Structure formats: structure tokens, C-alpha cells
């Protein structure tokens, strides 16, 4: 804080450790990016496990992958991409200070996210009914692949489950942003929070962009 700034009235929304809103926004944006790095490595561990076992058991993984509903998976991918669009438009509206539009696009993003989770729930249920949930009741139609197919399904549930958990956290973040916007805290001069919420949501989208082909398509459908 420069000696001059000490005598200015406090800026609305400026935390005490920062000298300016610009510094605060730069810091929080960098903070979100560094956090996303940790998320890349966190999911990365699971992708590593997937890579090893797909290399070792390509046929079992293909057979298991075939039992996933490619139509639902494709719809979900489209839904999540659309939610990324609405999120980007929310940030765009924030840059222009369009309070109502921010809230509309945030709600649209959340709605699309809800659709995604609903479809995911349907898929999980069908996996449960087909006895593809790893555990004592696991049963796979092609017995020669059963053990390794169980590894595939373990990864399926872990990876999509962790992804879904991150989406739910994203809902929480967006609710928080909705509240902040509604109370007028977001303006064309200070829209950093919406931007970093957007970064988080796009990251969640990118994880799915890779999960979809790895889980649904790599077994081949021919």
C-alpha cells in the first residue's frame, strides 16, 4: 500500500492485504489457475491407472465399454459443452455489467449441469441393474473378461463419480456467485469472481471431454 493509498477511503470489496482491485483480481485469478493445476494432477492419478490397465487389458476394457450407453454419453457431452457456453456467456455478461443476464446464464449453466447429473444417475442405475457395479454382486456376461472388466467399471465409477462430485461443488460455487451478483457486488469493473467460477466450470468440462472417449469410445463400436 503506497503512502497515498493509506489516506484514501476504503474501496468496496477490496481485501486489506491488497493495494488495488486490479491486484486482487490478478491474485485470485492466478490462485484459481494454480488450484486447477492441482486438479489436473488429482484426476491425473486416475487417468494414469486407466492408462495402465487399458494397455494391459484392451479386450476386456472394450467389452466393458460396449455396455455403456453411447447415446446417453453423447447427449451428456453435448449438455456439458452447452453449459460451458452458457458459463462463458455469464462471464461475458459480467464483463459488460449486465446483472440480469449474468444470473440467467448462471442458472442456465446450473440447469444443464443438473440435466447431466440426472442422465448420469440413469446410467448408474442401469449399471446397477446389470450387475456391473464392482463388489460382491458383480457379474459380467463374458466370463473370460470378468475380472478385468471389473477394473474398468471400478475406474468408470471412480472417475465419473469424482467428476460428478466436482460438478456438485461447481453448483455450490455458482449459487454463491448468484447471490453475490444479486446483491450487486459484480460490476463491469469487478467481475473477477464470475471469471474464476467460469475457469472452474470449464475445467470440469475439460475433464469430461477426456472421460467421454476414454470410457465410451475407446473400445470401438464396430
Amino acid at each position, binding site marked *: *500500500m*503506497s*503512502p497515498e493509498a*493509506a489516506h484514501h477511503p476504503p474501496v468496496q470489496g477490496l*481485501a*486489506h*492485504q*491488497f*493495494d488495488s482491485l486490479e*491486484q486482487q483480481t*490478478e*491474485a*485470485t485469478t*492466478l*490462485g484459481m489457475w*494454480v*488450484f486447477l*493445476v*492441482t*486438479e489436473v*494432477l*488429482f*484426476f*491425473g*492419478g*486416475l487417468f*494414469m*491407472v486407466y492408462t*495402465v*490397465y487399458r494397455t*494391459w*487389458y484392451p479386450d476386456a476394457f472394450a467389452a466393458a465399454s460396449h455396455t455403456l450407453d453411447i447415446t446417453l454419453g453423447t447427449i451428456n457431452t453435448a449438455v456439458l459443452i452447452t453449459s460451458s457456453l452458457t458459463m462463458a456467456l455469464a462471464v461475458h455478461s459480467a464483463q459488460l455489467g449486465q446483472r440480469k443476464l449474468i444470473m440467467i446464464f448462471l442458472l442456465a449453466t446450473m440447469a444443464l449441469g443438473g440435466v447431466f447429473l440426472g442422465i448420469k444417475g440413469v446410467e448408474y442405475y442401469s449399471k446397477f441393474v446389470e450387475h456391473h457395479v*464392482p*463388489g460382491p454382486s458383480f457379474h459380467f456376461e463374458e466370463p473370460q473378461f470378468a*475380472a*478385468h472388466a*471389473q*477394473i474398468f467399471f*471400478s475406474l468408470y465409477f*471412480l472417475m465419473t463419480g469424482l467428476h460428478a462430485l466436482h460438478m456438485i461443488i461447481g453448483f455450490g460455487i455458482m449459487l454463491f456467485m448468484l447471490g453475490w451478483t444479486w446483491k450487486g457486488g459484480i460490476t463491469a469493473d469487478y467481475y473477477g469472481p464470475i471469471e474464476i467460477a467460469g475457469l472452474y466450470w470449464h475445467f470440469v468440462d475439460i475433464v469430461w471431454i477426456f472421460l467421454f472417449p476414454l470410457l465410451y469410445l475407446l473400445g470401438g463400436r464396430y
Partner: protein
Amino acid sequence: MASSTVLIPPRHYLNDGYGIASWLLTRDHKRIALLYLATVTLFFFVGGAMAVMIRLDLATPAGDLVTDETYNKLFTMHGVLMVFFFLIPAIPAVLGNFLVPIMIGAKDLAFPKLNLFSWYIYVAGGLFTLYALVTGGVDTGWTFYTPFSTVSSTTNVIPTALGIFITGFSSILTGLNFIVTIHRMRAPGLTWFRMPLFLWSTYATSLINVLGTPVIAITLLLVAAERVFHFGFFDPRLGGDPVLFQHLFWFYSHPAVYIMVLPAMGVVSELVAAGCRKPVFGYPFVAFASLAIAVLGFLVWGHHMFVAGESVYSALIFSMLSFLVAIPSAVKVFNWTATMYKGAVSWETPMLYAYGFIGLFTIGGLTGLFLAAVGLDVHVTDTYFIVAHFHYIMVGGTIMGYLGGLHYWWPKISGRLYNEGLAKLSAGIIFIGFNLTFFPQFVLGYMGMPRRYHAYPPDFQVLNVLSSAGASILGVGYLIPMVYLMWSLRYGRLAGSNPWGAVGLEWTTTSPPPTENFTETPVVTWEAYDYHAPAEGHVA
């Protein structure tokens, strides 16, 4: 500039608010540093108690103090507590939290509330782990190798794994906080190459924290999940590969040892500069060496797996890379030594710890080179040679660096001076106790005594007795500072803002500092360690 004539300011961060709520809900990085100081010290002594039991049992060849199962739990908990709850957080969370904002001329870290949250996460993880300890312990080794940890062990694997998982987020968020702070909140004029080297080390450590810890987090989650749901990722009977666990585990745990030693190296840079009243020799090389250690440290993890079943070609690559990673560490040792050459070398306690670090870290590091050679590693792996190697670095290195830093910055943190005579005595006792404990272990390991065994052939007893005797001396050495440091809080002489006559932003503010660190934001116009500049402004 901050006054240097006031011995203790009327208002400072310690008396800025009283009561337990003002501490447990603080956003002040300095108070959070003290919260960490209290908790890491607690875990250090619990882990130390485990070590006492281990060395007592090993004083005789027969495993007669504790059963083998209990012994397994002792060395496991010793490792878990010392690694995850003491060595990894200690210097960054205590000294780093206290010093980073002050050294860059800021009022606090970028995210003070996140900083407090990090402490609570650390405590929560610690409570999980202590719960696991008191309800039966865990016997897998701190390395949790599968399939023993996922299938056969009947002990508290899941609570311990979850405890470490939770605490990992404390490291991640602290690292994130430091990275953003150092990038975005440096005072006007404080360029990267004017920063004290402690900040470079802290920055490099934070990079490792952010890049590596998430992988151990997901790995421990997988261990817990596999134990519950029997997924089969690491179970050969279900098609899994136990070595995959080791790849994931060591991808973090090797860089973790650099999380443990880099901050201590940063402290040593500060101590050597202040103790010799000279700029650190080859400052850019030391700065880049910190980054190089952080990067190269991620490329060598397979040297923990030479006998685990990884391919010979993989072992070759990891061996070569392990030789490479020694180079930046060696650069630092050379540069510290060169700094001391023709410097006004002092013998005050912090400097004693610094010199101890340089010598003992060199021994530990050189023995690491022995281990990077696959042929020799095959001979001494899983023996006491390994145990001695890492204790030379972790205890002879990191803990000495931590104690040195604690003593050096104690006047700044508390406003008081400790008793120098007792401090020197403790440093000497620690040095002697340490070497007596761990040097015999190099010999034991080379002679073939396996690690993690509660009994051994009688031929090894003499060296074991020496080691246990050393451990008791070392324990005494660690207890004495507790006494005189606490005593100094009440009765120590007032320190003033710069008792060492050192150069650095932290010495320009009062001891203890005010809550906002500086009365005016400093504007930095001098190079780091500018000991030859005229004594105006930045040297109090």
C-alpha cells in the same frame, strides 16, 4: 522507515487482541505461523516417542520390548507422523507463513482466510491420524505398500490414509498461497533477483506441493477405496499391479523429500549470509538450483523401486536422472562454502546449525549418490543404510535447518533473546547425539541389517547400542530448547528490531512486528544481502 530505537513497540501482533477466539479466528499470517508451531511441535514429540520405543527395543538383539506387530506399528507411526505432520509442514508453515509476507514487504499473504483454513485442515487430518494411533495403530510402514495395505493388514489403514489425505490439502493450499503471494504481492522495487533466497526455496517448495501432493491424495484415496470395495487396482489376484501403487506413491513421495529439505536450504542461505555478513556467493545459481531441484526431483521416483519389479531399462533411466538431481544440491553446498570464505564467520547458535546442516546434508546427499547406483542400491536396499541416509538429510539436514531458523528468527517472532549459552550447548548435544545415533546405521546397513525388523543377530548389537545411546542424547538435545525458548518469552532480554545486524526486510520492522508488518510499505532499492552498502535505511 521503521524505528530501530524502540526496543519493543507498544502495539504488535501478539498483543493485538487477546483471548482464544482472537487466535483461533485470526487471519494474521504471523499468528497462524504460531498455531502451526504449536501443533507441529506436538506431532514431533509424539513421533519422537515412537522413535524412543524403537531404539529401546533395538538396544537388545531379541525383540523383547515389544511384539513384532507392535514394532511394525511403531515404525509406521513414527514415519507417518514425522513425514506428513512434522517435516513437510514445519518450515513452510511456521517460518514460511511468518516470513513470506514480511520478506516481500506485504501486509499478509494473498489469501489470509485460506491460510487459517489450511491450519484447520492440518489439525483435522492430524486428529484422524491420532485417532488411528490410539485405537490400534497401523503397521504397513509409512509407505503403505500394496497389497498388504489394501488386502492383508488388519490395522487402521483407512483412518490413517484419510488423515494424510486431508492434511495434504493443507500443504496444497499453503503452496498455492505462497505462489500467488510471491508472484503478485512483492513490494515496489522488489524484483525476483532481489528477493532473499529463502523466498526462492519457499517458492520452489510450493511448486512441488502444488504439483505432487494431489497425486498422493488420489493414491491414498484409492488405497482406502480398494480396502473397502476390493476394486483390484493393486491386487494381483484381481488383475492389478502392486507396483502401480508404488509408481503413484513415489511420484509424490520422492519430491516430498525435497519439500522437506528445500525450505531448510533456504534457511541455511539466510543464516550463512547473516552469519558471514556477506551476500551469498553466486546468488543466481543458488536461486536456479532451487528450481532445478524442484523440477528434477519429479523425474527420479523410480529409484525407490529398483528391486520392486520395474523394468531394468526404467531403472537405468531413473538411475541416471538421480545422479543429475544431486548437481543443484551440490551447487548450493559449494556456494554456501564460498560465501563463508573470507566472510566474518560467526559462531552464534543459528550459524552452528547452519554449519551442521552443510556437513550432515553433504554426507546424506553423497550417500544418496551411492543409492542412485543400481548395483550398490540392490545390496543395501531395505537395510539400515537407507535409514541412515534419509535420517542424515531429514534430521541432520532439515531439523537442523528448522532449529537454526527458529533460533535466528526467534527474536523477530517473540521480541526476546534466548539464552545463548544453553542454545549453543543444545546445538552441540544435538550434533553429537545425531551422529552417534545414525552413523553406526550406515555400517549396520552395509553389513546387512535389514530395516523394519524388531530383532537382529547378536553380531549387530554393539552398533545398535551405540545408536540407541545416541538417540537418548539426541532426545535430551531436543528437549532443552523447549525449555529456554519458552523461558525467554517471559524473561528473555528484549531483542530490538535487528539483533543480528542483518540485512533483510524483516529486520527493518519492529520485534515483534505490528499486525500489518510495516507502518509504511517499503520500497526496495537495494540488492539482496547488501552488506556493503552504507548503513542507512535498510540496515537498522
